């Protein structure tokens, strides 16, 4: 009886420890992720949330680095017109996939965007980074500055800091980098435009007219 009681007690304690442990581990990266999400031949499961109508006939997959000068150029020259004429009108949507390779601060900047996504501010943080870009590894995208950007956006700093400092999304960013390499992407920005029955690659910070031609050939 005594022996039985000890065994039952051990099993009970083990179950309690298991339950407590499962709740105390850091939140899984799969939170808010659709692991099966693909666009054309690309797995965008670990990429950004979709900007625009998820059911739009065209998806623009942008492979970029927050420290890339040409990505900055595209963000400020071509993207506004694409957003206005194609994304806001429901003809296209956009997914950003990190190819963070330029400098030591690139992966951290990419991870920070997903920490912002935890607080539903991915695109706001993304835009803030491209509006604040300076020279590669000049310190503009180091941990301190990334936290300052989060503070300026009014994010919950305790959550953001623990997310960034723990490297919660380092594997997610690495997955995106691997996905870009697997797609044969060798520069940033590179875009793969996925249409209803074809996909085309656009390399570099091309003008709006080049994108318009590709989109119009797909719709």
């Amino acid at each position: 009886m005594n022996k039985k009681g000890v065994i039952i007690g051990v099993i009970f304690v083990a179950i309690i420890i298991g339950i407590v442990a499962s709740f105390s581990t850091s939140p899984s990266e799969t939170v808010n992720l659709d692991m099966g999400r693909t666009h054309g031949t690309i797995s965008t499961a670990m990429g950004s949330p979709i900007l625009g109508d998820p059911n739009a006939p065209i998806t623009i997959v942008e492979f970029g680095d927050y420290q890339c000068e040409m990505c900055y150029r595209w963000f400020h020259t071509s993207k506004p017109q694409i957003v206005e004429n194609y994304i806001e009108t429901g003809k296209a949507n956009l997914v950003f996939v990190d190819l963070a390779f330029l400098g030591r601060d690139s992966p951290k900047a990419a991870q920070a965007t997903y920490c912002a996504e935890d607080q539903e501010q991915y695109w706001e943080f993304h835009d803030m980074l491209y509006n604040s870009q300076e020279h590669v590894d000049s310190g503009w995208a180091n941990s301190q500055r990334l936290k300052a950007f989060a503070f300026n956006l009014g994010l919950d700093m305790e959550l953001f800091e623990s997310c960034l400092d723990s490297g919660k999304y380092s594997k997610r960013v690495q997955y995106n980098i691997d996905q870009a390499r697997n797609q044969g992407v060798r520069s940033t920005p590179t875009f793969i435009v996925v249409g209803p029955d074809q996909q085309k690659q656009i390399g570099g910070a091309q003008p709006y007219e080049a994108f318009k031609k590709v989109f119009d050939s797909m719709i």
Partner: protein
Amino acid sequence: MTQTIKLVFSNFKYVILTSVIFTSMFIGLLILSEYIFLEPYIVSHIPSGTELGFALIVTLSVLSALIIPMNIFRINILKSSKQKMGGSILGSIIGATAGACSCGPIGFAVISTFGSVGATATSFLTNYEIPIRIIAIAILAITYFTTVKSLKIECKLSP
């Protein structure tokens, strides 16, 4: 100065050489610096804020196309030393490498091969693209004037 240029380019071979150097350097740098795209359509543009970069590419290409044939002329025809040739090649190379944007395919290959050392090198070339191009132009300008001067002396042209 005009006499020297006339002397060198009176030979049609040097005119062709100049055209080849200018065209390949100009088009190459415009592609590297993303002023021209070949795929999926041939497109060219000069985004606002990049006009200075474009002007420097034009200057660099013109100077390289002028100076390299002049120095080849000196070496071929006058059997002179190759010292000034080094200046023109150096200026052209420095100017061209500054345009190899670190986020382009060349930068990607360098960073993939050499890791953080490659990243540091390419980011330096990108961050200081304009000053590096200005230095390259200065080297080419100095080489141009010394070449013209030496051709005048060696060919005994009237000043």
